[in-house]
């Protein structure tokens, strides 16, 4: 009896080991930051790929991607592919020799015609292509309610000064113009860095912005300080911001725009990227995009710099060079895949061949137009900085500034960490 049991157990375990091996041979593991609606959209995007090739795509979403990915890579068991939130991280893994050079198996000619050089440059490290972009988010947008604006008799501001004048007018009428929220768990502070970057792009030449990102100019530079001060004119003004600075620090970025849709509105304007649309609709399903809420481009400060666009993008990189991983990354770079992805999420496509009709609504088409017509496009600077600054002291610096720490001290702390971080 006992012997039989042992035999049974060993047969079962052998079968399971064998079947695991077989399954493992025709699957791709993908790690990303997406959960909820984004994870769903990803699964829908890869569904045609799975049915065509029979390759099983196993997606794991975690908001704690850097930590999870680092641990897996260091343990020698990375995912086949990973969706990285920024090119900075891609460069770090590329430098460590952990990534697969995509140009070895992808058709570079097609990529060259599908993608603008900006995207290919951002996905390259030392002349090799390590990442393909799947979508972009436009950050330089101010969301508002057209109905609330019409009721108050407000016009969409065309310049920064007009925007401040409108804010003053609202304050005079006993209203609060802005809704701002920087809380984001362990990533708190990032929405603030977007503000600073947008203001930098509007007050200095793009080349100076690049210098700032690569620490070619100090954080103590007058131009950086000015960007913080312009931001402070809005954020530190108790009358401008719903709930004042304390609310900025404690309200989650996803909850923040809710203030625009209360009756009467608690606030009238909210600066945030394209992706906030899904949060707005999630919290207020009855709202109609374009009618109940809309956006205008964050207006220019210095007329000669035009209306620049700040953006972010999602890219894929490969850690393992398996045929399945190659097949999936080729598919992801194709317009067919990206049409599903951007259609579901209202993100902007990176691939030029994506049909604008794939966008779910006029709002997204409008954002795509703003992006393509922008005088300058720059990638989210904090995402390109070394993480000790871009995901560290810059985040905390903005929070400290809003919480009342003297600007000189804030900038000195960031500069100290930058001096240290850019050295490596």
């Amino acid at each position: 009896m006992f012997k039989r049991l042992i035999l049974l157990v060993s047969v079962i375990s052998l079968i399971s080991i064998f079947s695991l091996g077989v399954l493992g041979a025709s699957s791709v593991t993908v790690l990303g930051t997406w959960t909820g609606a984004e994870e769903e959209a990803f699964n829908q995007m890869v569904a045609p790929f799975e049915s065509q090739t029979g390759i099983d795509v196993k997606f794991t979403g975690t908001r704690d991607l850097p930590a999870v990915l680092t641990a897996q890579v260091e343990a020698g068991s990375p995912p086949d592919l990973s969706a990285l939130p920024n090119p900075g991280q891609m460069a770090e893994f590329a430098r460590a020799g952990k990534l697969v050079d995509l140009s070895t198996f992808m058709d570079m000619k097609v990529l060259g015609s599908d993608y603008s050089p900006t995207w290919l440059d951002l996905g390259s490290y030392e002349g090799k292509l390590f990442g393909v972009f799947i979508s972009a988010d436009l950050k330089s947008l101010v969301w508002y309610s057209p109905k609330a604006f019409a009721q108050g008799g407000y016009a969409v501001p065309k310049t920064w000064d007009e925007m401040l004048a409108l804010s003053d007018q609202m304050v005079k009428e006993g209203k609060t113009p802005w809704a701002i929220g920087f809380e984001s768990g362990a990533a708190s502070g990032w929405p603030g860095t977007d503000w600073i970057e947008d203001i930098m792009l509007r007050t200095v030449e793009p080349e100076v912005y690049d210098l700032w990102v690569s620490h070619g100019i100090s954080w103590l530079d007058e131009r950086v300080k000015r960007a913080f001060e312009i931001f402070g004119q809005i954020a530190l003004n108790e009358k401008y911001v719903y709930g004042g600075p304390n609310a900025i620090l404690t309200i989650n970025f996803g909850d923040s725009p809710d203030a625009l849709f209360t009756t009467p509105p608690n606030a009238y304007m909210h600066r945030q990227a394209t992706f906030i649309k899904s949060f707005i609709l999630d919290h207020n399903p009855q709202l109609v995009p374009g009618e109940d809420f809309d956006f205008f481009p964050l207006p220019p400060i210095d007329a000669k710099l035009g209306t620049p666009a700040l953006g972010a993008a999602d890219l894929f990189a490969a850690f393992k060079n398996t045929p399945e991983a190659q097949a999936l990354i080729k598919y992801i770079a194709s317009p067919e895949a990206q049409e599903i992805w951007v259609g579901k999420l209202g993100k902007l496509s990176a691939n030029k061949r994506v049909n604008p009709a794939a966008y779910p609504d006029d709002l997204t088409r409008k954002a795509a137009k703003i992006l393509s017509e922008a005088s300058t496009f720059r990638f989210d600077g904090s995402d390109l900085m070394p993480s000790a600054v871009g995901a560290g002291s810059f985040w905390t610096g903005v929070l400290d500034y809003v919480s009342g720490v003297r600007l000189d001290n804030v900038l000195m702390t960031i500069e100290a960490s930058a001096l240290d971080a850019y050295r490596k």
Partner: protein
Amino acid sequence: MLNTKKYVPWLYILPAIFLLFFFLVYPSINTIYISFFNFNSEIFVGIENYLYCFTNEIMLNSFKNNALWVILFVPITVFLGLIIAVLLDRVKYESWIKSIIFMPMAISFVGAGVIWKFVYAYRPASAAQTGILNALRMAFQLEPIPWLIIRPWLNNFCLIVVGIWIWTGFCMVILSASYKGIPRELLEAARVDGASEFKVFWQITLPLMKPTLAVVATTMTINVLKIFDIVYVMTNGNYNTEVIANRMYKEMFIFRNYGRASAIAVILLVLIIPMIVINIQRFREQEGIR
């Protein structure tokens, strides 16, 4: 029995030694080793990482905050645990009340952090408050307070309260067991001799519980030196609430600076070693008594 070969006991403890070596000794030595190297463990940098730890403003702040945790958290948890253990001994529904106080132990620290984040939640005065503390303040016509933002005392104290909430139950259970181990005759004899309850507690109960108190206190100190989850979830070290372990996590997983993260780990280890030594000494003493 007596003629067992000398190597036989070694055979028995070999698996344990093997596991200890691979999962404790080797990683510790490796951590010490890479703490003398640069961010990707390629270039030897001497004590540079340690110099950073003892000069960097945020690191110094972390040391200060960890000290604050030790000073407030350890005495309060042990004191509360002791008082509750001794007083509940006279209550009819003792086990029920003890279960409730012990319950937070069953919640993960991350869960506790999330729960308390709701307790401390802040909304502008004109909005409905979602946090119970601010809702109470509003009920008394007081302005809501951003509990986790106001530095350096209030927010750190608010975090420490969460730690106390979790660990008091643990202290209570251990100390209660020790209290119940005291022979009742001793206490009765003292009472018959006319000692006040207060005197009984100070001169009989407390001295008899001293070894357990020491163990609980050192365990709590080790806990608090390693404090991470609560801070990570609730403030992530922002607004001057940074602690050593959270800094180590950031250097390792966010900033990918292995040298520095290892140096912080070594410092943490060195801080904890005296506590372990004290614990082992106590243990030996107790064994000696037996």
